[in-house]
């Protein structure tokens, strides 16, 4: 096939932030956005499988799961939901400030996001602690204090709590990873690294990830905490 070389190459007015494999910033930004969304699709499939298991078992054991879920503290769950929703707002603000190249705006918004994430983890810690204390963690000692089961069949309640700890645990892990990544981003902004100051995309990508983490919780919260009586 005939191919004619064109004279683009490097060295005529390209950004510091342009990576060598890309021809221009538009291609680079597009690629990163598409890449991040593709990654988020994999995360949807990842959590999706767990939601599928949840759906199956809840439809099989509706009453027992309803009873078991009463062991959860809805107030703490609500606090966590609002905290995460608010943190999604602040991270969106951070992306906006990044587009406007306003360093202190970015840093303050990201800091609030981190505080929210930290609050989420702290509330989670107390929730888990309460469950361990009530012997609601699956295993040999499960249900040794039956009053905390609220009348649910212990076997099926174990399935519920197995999924509860599995899904909220995985979600919590994603929150932690998010906190680490946001911390890294903040460090880059603090040091005026051109990677973030000249290019808002890294901040946008982190924002996308954080929105996804929030979205998973938006699904988890009603499914786990807000079950209607069957």
């Amino acid at each position, binding site marked *: *096939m*005939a*191919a*004619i*070389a*064109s*004279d*683009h*190459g490097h060295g005529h007015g390209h950004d510091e932030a342009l*990576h*060598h*494999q*890309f*021809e221009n910033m538009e*291609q680079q930004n*597009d*690629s990163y956005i*598409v*890449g991040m969304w*593709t*990654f988020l*699709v*994999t*995360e949807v*499939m*990842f*959590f*999706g*499988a*767990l939601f*599928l*298991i949840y759906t*199956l*078992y809840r439809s*099989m*054991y509706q009453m027992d799961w309803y009873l078991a879920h009463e062991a959860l503290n809805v107030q703490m769950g609500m606090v966590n939901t609002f905290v995460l929703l608010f943190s999604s707002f602040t991270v969106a603000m951070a992306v906006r400030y990044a587009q406007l190249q306003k360093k202190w705006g970015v840093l303050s918004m990201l800091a609030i996001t981190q505080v929210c994430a930290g609050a989420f983890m702290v509330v989670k810690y107390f929730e888990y602690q309460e469950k361990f204390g009530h012997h609601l*963690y*699956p*295993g*040999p000692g499960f249900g040794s204090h039956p009053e905390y089961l609220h009348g649910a*069949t212990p*076997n*099926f309640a*174990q*399935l519920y709590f*197995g*999924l509860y*700890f*599995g899904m909220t645990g*995985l979600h919590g892990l994603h929150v932690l990873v998010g906190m680490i990544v946001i911390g890294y981003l903040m460090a880059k902004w603090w040091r005026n690294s051109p990677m973030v100051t000249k290019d808002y995309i890294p901040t946008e990508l982190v924002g996308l990830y954080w929105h996804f983490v929030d979205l998973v919780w938006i699904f988890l919260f009603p499914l786990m905490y807000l079950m209607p009586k069957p």
Partner: protein
Amino acid sequence: MSAIPADPNVTAVSATPRTETNYLNADWSIKSWLLTGDHKRIAILYLVSVSFFFFLGSIAAGLIRYELTAPAGFILESETYNKVFSAHGIIMVFLFLIVAIPAILGNFLLPLMIGARDMAFPRLNLLSWYLFMIGGACIMGGMINGGVDSGWTFYVPYSSMYANSNVTMVLTGIFIAGFSSITTGINFIVTTHKMRAPGMTWFRLPLMVWALYATGVVIILGTPVVAVTLLCIIFERVFHLPIFSAELGGDPVLFQHLFWFYSHPAVYIMILPAFGVQSELIANFARKRVFGYHLIAFSSLAIAGLGFLVWGHHMFISSESMYQGVVFSLISFLVAIPSAIKVFNWTATLYKGNIRLQTPMIYALGFIGLFTIGGLTGLFLGCLGTDVHLTNTYFIVAHFHYVMVGGAVTAFLGGLHYWWPKMTGRLYPESIAKWNAVLVFIGFNLTFFPQFIVGFMGMPRRYHYYYFAPEFQPYHIMSTLGSSVLALSFIIPGLYLTRSLSKGAKASANPWGAHGLEWETSSPPPTSNFDQIPVVLDEVYDFDPVTEHEQDKAAQALEVPSYLSNEAKSAESEKEKR
């Protein structure tokens, strides 16, 4: 060739590179290899590690075949035998088949074929290789620590509650290797969408690129599901979180649904790139554009999509309902059609071509035969009535080895030989390679054809002993004899390909006279792939068999092989003239 508008800024690409520096010799330090972002170097890293794992998996295969020659085994206890077949499956599926063509040939070729300088995310690409190595190390650690005996399918409750072996360690390795696969898939998708050179429209893409793109889609959608499913087993074993436990009211068959939701598309991850290689080989060695280009491109996407709707055909007798079985069977028959179309299209490509029977073509022709048999025997298994008898027997083992080894491995070898000059700058010895390709075909059929028969007779798979049924023995003996031929035919290329790195003749930019952007740059290519990014004006596989035939006649008169590099060619013709 199309008319080129006069433009002082445009210069033609030269056939020989301006400089001798290529991606291999640019920097010899270990650090430059281990911290590379260059997709070509990453492909070579994968080549070395994947070959190593293939070798380990083959040893396990040899042990299996050796043991099965006698109804009561020779040297292994049952527990050890169970660990050996599990190792064979795990290594071959997760560390070889899922990875080989996409990560080696795909990584090397995708940017070159679309005219890009590198993948969209080079550092992610390197991470992919490290994740593969860490996952592989975890798996091998589990093997060395005593192995697992759950089979590569890890059915619960055996693997979650009953197995005493290193399930957690091996599952962790598979989980990590899964992320290696996911990052490769992300790279393929974004690169194909965003990094094509000017003029490289979707329908000018080589079919290899279509195949890699479809593979990326399958990887993205399927791998996370199996990752979390295997994670659930780890949850049960390590954290006591019951998910599939029947005693507590859980559903062990749910594991099977989730596992096969990935593992069926996984086989398309293994075969779609092989189809891509196959299209490239047939087009370039028949010197003709592939028949039905559009249909082959769309059939790759159709297979990727439909492949997600057939997982239940692994579960017809697992207690899934009759209606589920009927639906899955119907869709399974439908998904067979695009593959059949491809086979017919490749055959039709040969019509009025100008066929060169060099080594890659021998592999490609072998692929057509073996994949046809393998694919058609899949119909026996998609057909409900016959599957009830044939499932869980050696018929299944024979079927998937025909498509995986007769299909994917044959295509891998064909592609490796075809692109070897491009990747290494060296030519392999053609005549020994050609005869070895025939040996692969023969050894393969001798090994696996008897397994169809013994499976139909009722021998279950994963059986160490069969002394209840000594009538199975003759077929096992035949199969083991065949496997020694097959083993030889895999060892020989390992030897001559390695030798060619130092002793092989140097290759020109385009030793095959093939079409494709990868052949427009030197062999091996420079680190940045192209001196200047090409602008694509021509259609893909732009061969003209009639003109070529005339050129061949002329070349025949001189008796100079055209695959030698230009320097060697001129030296040869000098010799002839004298």
